[in-house]
């Protein structure tokens, strides 16, 4: 199928050579474009602001990438992140630093549950995660009767490792960078990475090769849950409090970040490197609009159009048999 498409778009053959770089290309063009209209944007100081704001989105997108690679989708990330922000805010006073790993572990567990529901009950991930997300929201509402929990001064001290900065370079960017490196490592060098690629590209074949598909799917959702939770922790730290709707509205940007990078929503193709680029594109478009001064009345329209355009440029159709 792929080939026939290529035959169809013979001139595209040349295009397909530059394909791998198009996302990066787009990103650079975007930066230049905004830079020309608003030179201030390119100052290191401002860029570091942009980056640190993008990092939470990236952390959540990382988990999402793992799931989308398998051809699934995780709609529970924003609920998960909000939930985690509540949990960490609740735990910090009593547990101190132990609260961070614990929260991420809880996220992992919740994610595994989503995966279990999806895989074992054979419910499409779209619905399964939608439902588990609802459950998590319910839980975070119950915790404080819907109120948000502020970090006390001690708590704010304990999150310095997130909110602080080294030589004016925000830690949160470093954290995101480390996660990105870790993610790429996992995808390239571990059994999990290899197998999820195989499952995404051809589940029946992977199954017949003796890969326990279900297990790796559940793992992917688990990791996604963990990433969401970690994102929630970062949010809680940056906003120095947790709230049941702290991460609301982060779901769509997260998905957008993954797909705009060039990862196929149908699974199989993609990696976290792409997601790094995708995240930057999404957040730069968003913040860039403010910077350039696009009228707020029009911002949503511009953002929507930008999304479509970005995907149009970045997805590698030669690898996608059928575009659904």
């Amino acid at each position: 199928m792929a080939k026939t498409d290529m035959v169809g778009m013979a001139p595209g053959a040349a295009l397909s050579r530059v394909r791998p770089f198009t996302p990066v290309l787009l990103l650079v063009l975007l930066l230049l474009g905004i830079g020309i209209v608003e030179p201030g944007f390119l100052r290191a100081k401002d860029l570091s602001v942009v980056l640190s704001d993008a990092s939470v989105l990236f952390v959540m997108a990382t988990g999402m990438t793992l799931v989308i690679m398998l051809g699934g989708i995780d709609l529970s990330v924003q609920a998960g992140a909000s939930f985690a922000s509540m949990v960490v805010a609740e735990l910090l006073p009593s547990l101190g630093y132990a609260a961070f790993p614990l929260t991420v572990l809880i996220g992992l567990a919740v994610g595994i549950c989503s995966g279990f529901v999806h895989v074992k009950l054979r419910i499409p991930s779209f619905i399964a995660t939608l439902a588990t997300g609802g459950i998590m929201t319910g839980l975070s509402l119950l915790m404080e009767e819907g109120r948000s929990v502020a970090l006390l001064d001690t708590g704010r001290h304990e999150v310095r490792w997130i909110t602080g900065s080294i030589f004016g370079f925000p830690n949160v960017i470093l954290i995101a960078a480390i996660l990105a490196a870790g993610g790429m490592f996992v995808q390239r060098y571990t059994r999990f990475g290899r197998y999820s690629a195989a499952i995404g590209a051809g589940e029946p074949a992977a199954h017949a090769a003796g890969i326990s598909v279900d297990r790796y799917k559940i793992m992917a959702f688990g990791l996604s849950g963990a990433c969401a939770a970690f994102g929630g922790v970062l949010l809680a730290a940056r906003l120095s409090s947790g709230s049941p709707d702290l991460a609301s509205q982060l779901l769509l940007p997260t998905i957008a970040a993954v797909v705009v990078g060039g990862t196929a929503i149908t699974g199989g193709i993609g990696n976290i490197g792409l997601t790094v680029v995708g995240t930057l594109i999404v957040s730069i478009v968003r913040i860039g609009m403010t910077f350039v001064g696009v009228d707020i009345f029009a911002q949503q329209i511009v953002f929507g159009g930008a999304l479509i355009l970005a995907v149009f440029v970045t997805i590698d159709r030669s690898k996608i048999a059928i575009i659904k």
Partner: protein
Amino acid sequence: MLNVEQISKSYGPVHALREVSIEVRPNEVVGLIGENGAGKSTLMRVLAGTVRPDSGRILIDGTSVSLRDSRHANACGIAMVFQEQSLLLNMSVAENIHLAQEGEFMRLGLLDRRRMNEVARAHLARVGLDVDPRTKAGELTFAARQMVELAKALALEQRTTAPLTIFLDEPTSVLESRDIAILFDRMRSLKSRASFIFVSHRLDEVLEISDRVYVLKDGAVVAERPAAEATVPELHAMMVGRALHSGYYREDRQGVPGAEPVLEARQLTVRGAFESVDLTLRRGEVLGVAGVIGSGREELMRTLFGFLPQTGGTLKVNGQEVVLRSPTQAVAAGIGYIPRERRVEGLVMDLSVAVNMTLANLDVAMTHNMIDHGRERTIADDWIRRLHIRTPSAAQVCRNLSGGNQQKIVLARWLTAKSRILILDHPTRGLDVGAKSEVYDLIRDLSAQGVGIILTSDTLEETIGLCHTILVMRDGMITGRLDAPAEAKPSQVAVLEHMV
């Protein structure tokens, strides 16, 4: 009536077709043979209208046409029955037959479903298939689906004045001998209505059904023969460019299997599929399982690899009792499986050769629990060399390779996984003669290395030729167990009588 004149088509440097000329006369069956990559499928795509030739023309009753798309090809009286089963499993037989041709059933802008079904029933009757046109295609057997495809192709004659040419692309590759007989029978009775272009790898079949035979090699027609005058070895020679030597199935290399059993099934049962099957696979033995579709042999094969959980009986691997609930456990038990559906279950088509080879046993490519891409590469290159896999490199994506090479990659995977038991589910399906013989050699090598092999095949001949022992199944029971030593192979008849 249908003339293909001087058609050429090339993709970049590769010449898929070189000035191919073929003539199809009224009411005749034209055989078309050639190895994979000889240009058969490209020619078919040209006739189907999905590929435009670079040069040359197509004449129908003397008038030149340039086929725009499959719809247009149909309008010109050219129908396709694809090797890939091309029915939509989620739709009813009638809907499949009339797909994209519902026009005639529109009444006041609405579909007249009743008439649609009636007409479909008539078409089905013509190919002698008695199923309710409302049943979903997915509920039919392969054979029945093939017939539906034929009916679909025939349905064309209602819609076009042009003489009908039906292009059958390896229709027999998924059929049992019994069904093939039926198919041929239908074709003969339909010759009065339409002409056929019959593509197959099985030369004997081609000769049996065709009036004339064209041989394609490297994109060009190398010969045209009246079937009556041609012989299998001759055609084979022209097709492969080398003579078909005796001992086609390497009977000469058939060794004597060891004594110790590697796989034992006792009273093995899967409810609704087969009951109390006893079998013993010895070291280095090639064990054939014969039986018509529905005899339970397909399910037996899949059960032995953990696809279908057994509902009764015991299974022992190397004397250890095991219960296989999933392929994962089967692989862990040292069993390998070469599936019938290579493209779906065999390979992850969009991943590289190397990745596919190490899929079942990643450990060999790992150093302290990390994938060592260099090491993986060397392993892959090693197999590519040893199995003579024709691929640009180990990084090549499998989708682009020929069926034979793909099959070898699957095999290489299980060799990498050091499987001591191999289940070959129609290992040569869809392979050309050249690729087949290579696979036969490999099977002999493996058995010589003491690998136990259980095999089912499309042809009895192949099964008999390759196996030490043959189990025959009927209605989910073992009905016969024949020894097939190299020097005294049983006759097909001998096997058949246990099957039906």
